[in-house]
């Protein structure tokens, strides 16, 4: 390969199944020698929020939003058949059953392979989420221009 190909993923959704798909593709691309950037925006930010502690924000509405929409990789629901947690619990069991890594393991693996995690500052501003709410693996906090500058160089670009 003359030049490293790049892949950009916009991770808009914050559901467990969609997050799994996004990290599967990211790991696959990284193992094919491609440079991978994942842009987490809107509900997708929930995937990269830390699991511990509470999310502090200003104002009643934002505080309420961040209480209801707490996020964190361990709190994500399936987009279908969540069934008050039963369905999601079962899916995690099924994954374990066939030795498929859990989301946290996939995230660690992606990171180890050099996948870049970028959090959208606009969504953070609207929802009142501060940098401290995120896992330390997040590489940068940026906007649409950063995403487009990378996406235009890339051959693969997905919105999940």
């Amino acid at each position, binding site marked *: 390969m003359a030049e490293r190909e790049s892949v950009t993923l916009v991770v808009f959704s914050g559901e467990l199944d969609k997050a799994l798909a996004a990290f599967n593709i990211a790991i*696959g691309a990284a*193992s*094919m020698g*491609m440079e991978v950037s994942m842009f987490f925006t809107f509900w997708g930010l929930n995937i990269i929020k830390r699991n511990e502690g509470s999310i502090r924000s200003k104002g009643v509405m934002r505080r309420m939003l961040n209480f209801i929409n707490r996020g964190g990789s361990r709190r994500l629901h399936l987009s279908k058949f969540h069934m008050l947690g039963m369905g999601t619990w079962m899916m995690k069991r099924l994954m374990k059953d066939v*030795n*498929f890594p859990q989301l946290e393991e996939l995230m660690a693996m992606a990171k180890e392979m050099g996948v870049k995690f970028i959090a959208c500052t606009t969504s953070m501003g609207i929802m009142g989420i501060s940098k401290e709410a995120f896992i330390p693996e997040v590489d940068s906090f940026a906007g649409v221009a950063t995403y487009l500058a990378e996406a235009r160089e890339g051959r693969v670009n997905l919105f999940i």
Partner: protein
Amino acid sequence: MKADATLDCIGLYCPMPIAHTAKKLEELEKGQVLEILADDEGIKEDMPAWCKTTGNELLGIEEEGEQYRLYVRKS
């Protein structure tokens, strides 16, 4: 086929076999052959695609029942 190293991916689903292959191949020298054992059927299509993209050479795929033995030469 003679291999310089073997990677066991039995029981692992996509994208783990190719991810592990990429990692294992880093340890090998150019020209050395890696043998990969897998039982996820997708590997039959995925390994050729992976090799095509990364420029490594797929020497062959042997099927033994529901298991596969794949040989990749590092280039």
